[in-house]
């Protein structure tokens, strides 16, 4: 799990503590911008997101959120996912801080049993 993906994010410093304010913001954004295609527990238009923070680096996740078009053309994992799901992911999030909040929400989800 070293692939950082392709895009504006080179490095994300994560604190071991989850920032609950950021989680709240991320959850709201997830509902508006992601939930029509991604569920946590089940495959929908795109893959289920449970465990994504264990499968991928934080940089990869943020680059996928912010730069899906280039990712699905060049990144080997993203290319494979597109071939499986056949629906290109939409660049719904343009703002880095918003992508960071969604990442925090996904970390929170994965911290729950």
């Amino acid at each position, binding site marked *: 799990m070293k692939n950082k993906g392709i895009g504006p994010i080179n490095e994300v410093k994560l604190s071991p503590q989850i920032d609950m304010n950021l989680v709240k913001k991320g959850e709201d954004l997830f509902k508006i911008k992601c939930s*029509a295609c991604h569920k946590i527990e089940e495959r*929908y*238009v795109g893959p289920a997101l449970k465990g994504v923070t264990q499968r991928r680096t934080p940089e990869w996740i943020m680059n996928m959120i912010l730069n899906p078009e280039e990712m699905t053309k060049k990144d080997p994992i993203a290319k494979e996912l597109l071939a499986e799901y056949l*629906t290109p992911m*939409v660049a*719904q999030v343009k703002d880095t801080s918003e992508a960071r909040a969604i990442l925090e929400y996904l970390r929170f989800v994965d911290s729950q049993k």
Partner: protein
Amino acid sequence: MWGKVGSEDAARAVYVPPCQYDEFYAFVSGGFDGQLLVYGLPSGRLLKIIPVFSQYPRNGYGYSEETKNFLMTSHGFIPWGDLHHPALSKTDGVPDGRWIFANENNTPRVAMIDLRKFETVEIIEIPNSAGNHSSPFVTQNTEYVVAGTRFSVPTDVTTGKFKDVPIASYKDNFRGTITFIKVNNDPNYKGEDRMSIAFKLLVSGFDYDLAHCGKGPSHGWCFFTSYNTEEAYTLIETNASQNDKDYILAVKWKKAEECIAQGKGKKFPATYYHNYYDEKKHMAVSRVEKEVTILTPQDCSGVAYYLSTPKSPHGVDVDPTGDYIVAGGKLSADLPIHSFSKMIKAIENKEFEKEVFGIPVLKFEAVNYCLVPKACLGPLHTEFDGKGYGYTSCFVSSEVIKTDIKNCQVVDRIQVYYNIGHLMIPGGDSRKPWGKYLLAMNKITKDRYLPVGPELHQSAQLIDISGEKMRILLDFPTLGEPHYANGIHADVIKEKTIQYYDLRENEHPYAVKSEAETRVERKGNVVHVYMSAIRTHFTPDNIEGIRVGDTVYFHVTNLDQEYDIHHGFAIFGAENANILIMPGETRTLKWVPKAPGVHQEMQGYVRVSPANANVPLKWGTGK
């Protein structure tokens, strides 16, 4: 076939590779199509059809609940209109790319189109009018948009209604009106209704055909051609062409403002619709206006003059200096050019030949700068290149002539195919034309393209005017009958266009912000479906519990927030149209199911049960 057009050389001049952009936007009237067409120049590519005065099944304009109100008038819902003249908003006499206005000729109206999104945002009806043809030309800073009657009407101003009188009493009862629509230019204005009728000038019952407003020295004035000074009402082509001279009406709107401020205008009842778009709620709203201010020339001395002009002038085009006024004398082969500064002197010296309806008529010699001798047959409209030349369309002789205005002579001419009406140079009616291309818009197409039966589209020809001699580069069919057009350099607009609507700002009362908010609600026989669309599905996509006798509203919100990801929605058997929903937008399709059964809606199903059924409402996606 005659008139060889094109060579590899010409083809190269109009070739714009994909992802490189045209240099100009051309806004071409759709004519009896009722729409406004956006072409790129020099490629001649059709970029967009903007629905304005006609329903548009492609995207549901005029069908969807949000846009139906745009087509409301005092005569009810009118699904069709005849769009003639686009007019870009101007600042300091130069097109500024904020809005473009367009007139409806048949049921008099004026529309405003927002060039951030290339969509109609406002339509105002013009009362006491018929044939709104000398419209919607704008003043130097878009203070006003004008709307004059081509066909005078027997208005009783005291009631705002048409009088029931014999047509033969035309001279006694029929009057023209020149309407000035005020435009709210305040960039911080929060309302959506930017147009309002400031005043109407009551004038004699001639046919006010075309217009243009002054600029520079002539700022503060607008000019209208008039024919039928005979006031004929039958067999107009002949009976309205008896007089040797007709008139240009010069209106000093700054004077009208003064008179109105002094209380010289009178308020009269009128009923007209004013439809405008609430951007937050994504919805056109109709307001019925009840009053207009009418000013009569007798009550406001100096507000208007008639300029004696050879036989049935058509176009009245003010050159970039604001001094020369070219009047296309449809029935005169000599092309008259008037001078604004001469006109002002003539007014000072009272060089009047008579007075008509309280308006002094200025002598021809006192206002005319020159007559371009034997210019062409059927000169109609003139646009300018900003280098001292005017380009005039000649309907009968099917040509464009280039005239040295100052020296009053034709210096070049070129055949066009066939029977040209209007012509357009980007910025060619402004103080700063981009004098590189000219678009000729022709009434007759016949042998230009592959035959397609009796009904042909009209045609346009692109002419290079950058050199001494004009040169045809391109020839292409157009949609509808193109009347006038306006063009602008792409740089003024292209960076300002928006790509999608922000979902967070969507205040449509039936919007959903996420799939979690989707639902179906019944209120008696009315069912509201709060639906979302996102690549690649609708939620809910299965609905049960709809009954015959219900009226169902599908309120579809496009949750995508990316450029060019719009979604379409249609219902099998619905008596309206497809709707297109732009990213972040909400649109509503109404459906009245007629018989029990299963109805397909795009990728899902609606179950319709008999009127007396007990099937509960149920909905979902992926369940």
